[in-house]
């Protein structure tokens, strides 16, 4: 052996051993911005530091149509990442199109996860025709935020300083009236401007609580229950219980500056309250309660983040990367307390039942009731977060609340357009 070959061999050996120590890279696309993004980064950094075998690299994209379009197109050409964040409300549209790779029970148990460890409603939302297409991470339903100072003045608190139970539309409306009569403030802050999603979410909640269903046989079937729900929301506004034309930031500002007694919003605003109290920017004591039982049951609109594996065209995920993906998912589940600080209710029961979570306030005040009653958008390709059906609803529901359209007119326009949409199928 000449010196040169010896050197080369040595070099090859060195690189070889260096390569052996290189961690397997897991690519992870998500749409988590703001505080959620910061908390997910903490989890990823924590995971990468906790072991040497895998390294998760995230790419953050804009949520909604941009995210789902990018994942859809890149999956169909085999360029999708190993792992994505996903709204469980979209499973029924994506699973039949073979865009997601089913996850088997064995794969789950290989990292110590099993169905019994998750809220049943969330687990069901992650499956389609008996197969699991995602691992639920959390649920984020609507909740009722309340200003304790204002509510006390309006006589709505019990001896412990918590909201007295409200079990009907009449009781909730009476509470709004009491706020207006006794304090002069508006009762309820809720996003309701012309492109607001919140009216759809509350409407869905109220229809489901009446035992109604939104969709039957690919047709809108909300009927009288749907009309009733929209009428109630429009009436609250007509009575001046709800500030008009609120876009999302305005609705949050109305509540956090003490101009309303209540706010109906997702749990994702919990950090705003927690941080506001810490920094002294929130000038009042607040509480968070599950959304009231307006009708027969306490079904509440919600959605869930989950982890899913794109079904890359002709390029199934290799075994080593799959093992890393599963390992990372399990790590996040076990450390979901970090995630829970975003207000989201973890899907993983061992975390929700832990003493640490019980001590996490206000989260544990609403978590169990809300998660047990969470209701998703109806299944279908047109359904789910930022999907076509929601897009149709935002055209007409806010307009009905603002009095631009009568409830009957808004409902018939909504039903016509939605039925036209749903009659078409994703093609081919």
């Amino acid at each position, binding site marked *: 052996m000449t010196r040169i070959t010896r050197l080369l061999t040595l070099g090859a050996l060195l690189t070889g051993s260096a390569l052996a120590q290189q961690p397997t890279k897991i690519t992870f696309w998500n749409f988590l911005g703001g505080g959620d993004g910061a908390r997910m980064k903490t989890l990823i950094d924590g995971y990468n530091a906790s072991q040497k075998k895998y390294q998760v690299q995230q790419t953050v994209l804009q949520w909604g*149509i941009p995210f789902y*379009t990018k994942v*859809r*197109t890149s*999956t*169909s*050409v085999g360029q999708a990442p190993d792992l994505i964040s996903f709204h469980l409300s979209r499973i029924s549209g994506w699973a039949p199109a073979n865009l997601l790779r089913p996850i088997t029970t064995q794969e789950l148990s290989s990292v110590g996860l099993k169905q019994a460890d998750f809220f049943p409603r969330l687990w069901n939302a992650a499956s389609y025709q008996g197969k699991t297409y995602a691992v639920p991470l959390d649920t984020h339903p609507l909740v009722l935020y309340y200003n304790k100072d204002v509510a006390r003045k309006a006589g709505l608190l019990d001896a412990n300083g918590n909201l007295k139970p409200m079990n009907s539309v009449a009781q909730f409306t009476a509470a709004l009236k009491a706020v207006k009569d006794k304090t002069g403030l508006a009762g309820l802050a809720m996003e309701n*401007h*012309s*492109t607001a999603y919140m009216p759809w979410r509350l409407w869905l909640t109220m229809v489901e609580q009446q035992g109604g269903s939104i969709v039957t046989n690919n047709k809108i079937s909300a009927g009288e229950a749907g009309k009733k729900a929209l009428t109630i929301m429009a009436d609250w506004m007509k009575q001046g219980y709800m*500030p*008009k*034309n*609120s*876009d999302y930031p*305005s609705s949050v*500002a*109305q509540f956090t500056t003490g101009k309303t007694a209540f706010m109906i919003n997702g749990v994702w605003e919990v950090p705003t309250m927690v941080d506001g109290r810490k920094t002294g920017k929130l000038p009042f004591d607040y509480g968070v309660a599950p959304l009231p039982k307006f009708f027969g049951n306490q079904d509440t609109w919600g959605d869930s983040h989950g982890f899913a594996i794109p079904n890359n065209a002709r390029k199934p995920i290799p075994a080593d990367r799959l093992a890393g993906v599963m390992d990372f998912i399990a790590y996040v589940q076990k450390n979901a307390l970090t995630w829970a600080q975003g207000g989201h209710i973890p899907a993983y029961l061992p975390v929700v039942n832990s003493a640490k979570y019980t001590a996490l306030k206000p989260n544990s005040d609403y978590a169990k009731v809300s998660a047990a009653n969470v209701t998703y958008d109806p299944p279908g*390709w*047109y359904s789910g977060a930022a*999907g*076509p059906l929601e*897009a149709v609803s*935002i*055209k*007409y529901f*806010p*307009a009905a609340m*603002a009095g*631009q*359209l009568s409830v009957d007119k808004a409902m018939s*326009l909504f039903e016509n357009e939605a039925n036209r*949409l749903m009659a*078409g199928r*994703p*093609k*081919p």
Partner: protein
Amino acid sequence: MRDTIPPQARAQTGIPRGTRRRTPGGPIALLMLAPFLIAYLLFFVFPIGRAVQLSLTQSSLTETGPFVGLSNYVQLAGDPDFWASVLHTGQFALYTVIPVTLLGMLMALAVNRLVRARNFAQALFFLPFVLPVSVVTLLWQWILNSSFGLVHNLFGTDIAWFGEPATAMPMVALVTVWWTVGFNMLLFLAGLQNISREVYEAAQLDGAQGWTAFRTITWPLLWPVTTLVFTLQLIASLKIFAQVYILTGGGPFNSTQVVLQYMYNTAFQNLDAGYASAIAVAFFLIILLVSLVQAALLRGRS
């Protein structure tokens, strides 16, 4: 191919007339053109062809489906949403094209009269055009916010400017005019500065000043710039998308949904690429038609 070398030049190069129709620069010229040509074919001609092809199929966002002939176009012809969106696009063009042309000219005339502050005024009027659409829309959303906005605080109004069917489209137009007028002003300024001072001096000797000078000199000599601005603006206005997408989302209840947004929603929200392509092709033809009519009308004046 016509021989373009002037006789004097040919004498110098010594190429005998008629022996070489192709100049020696031909292949080199082609080579230098190639990058553009390839990009043009690849990113312009090919996609148009694909769009036409897709519009004859029933396709999803990611898969080309079966050939269905003209059925997408038949459906389009009877689609009230499509025709409403064409109407809204026209409405937007109506609200923006003439104001932005006239205002651009007026601002150029005013700025041109300034001596000391000309550069400053020019920069001031041009500034909004530098901003990206997201910044412009965010700015106006704040100004016009019905409960926290500047207008609300100054005048005590609580109108949801982008949320009322009567005000939504005019407000989107207003934002666009504010945003883009500076660029047209620059074009008019360039035009104004091309008019020789001597023409005005001669006219002044004949007693033509002020309005007369404008009517008989400035206006006719600015006409080429005016038609240019008008044409550019018309095409830009027909292609309106971003402002509507961000400011109103096409609402309230579809009253500001323009063609490109309808196309975007059809393709990316409803996942119907075949039908979206038909919308695109039909709209392409509409714009082509409008431009031809407009060019014919304006040519008559020049």
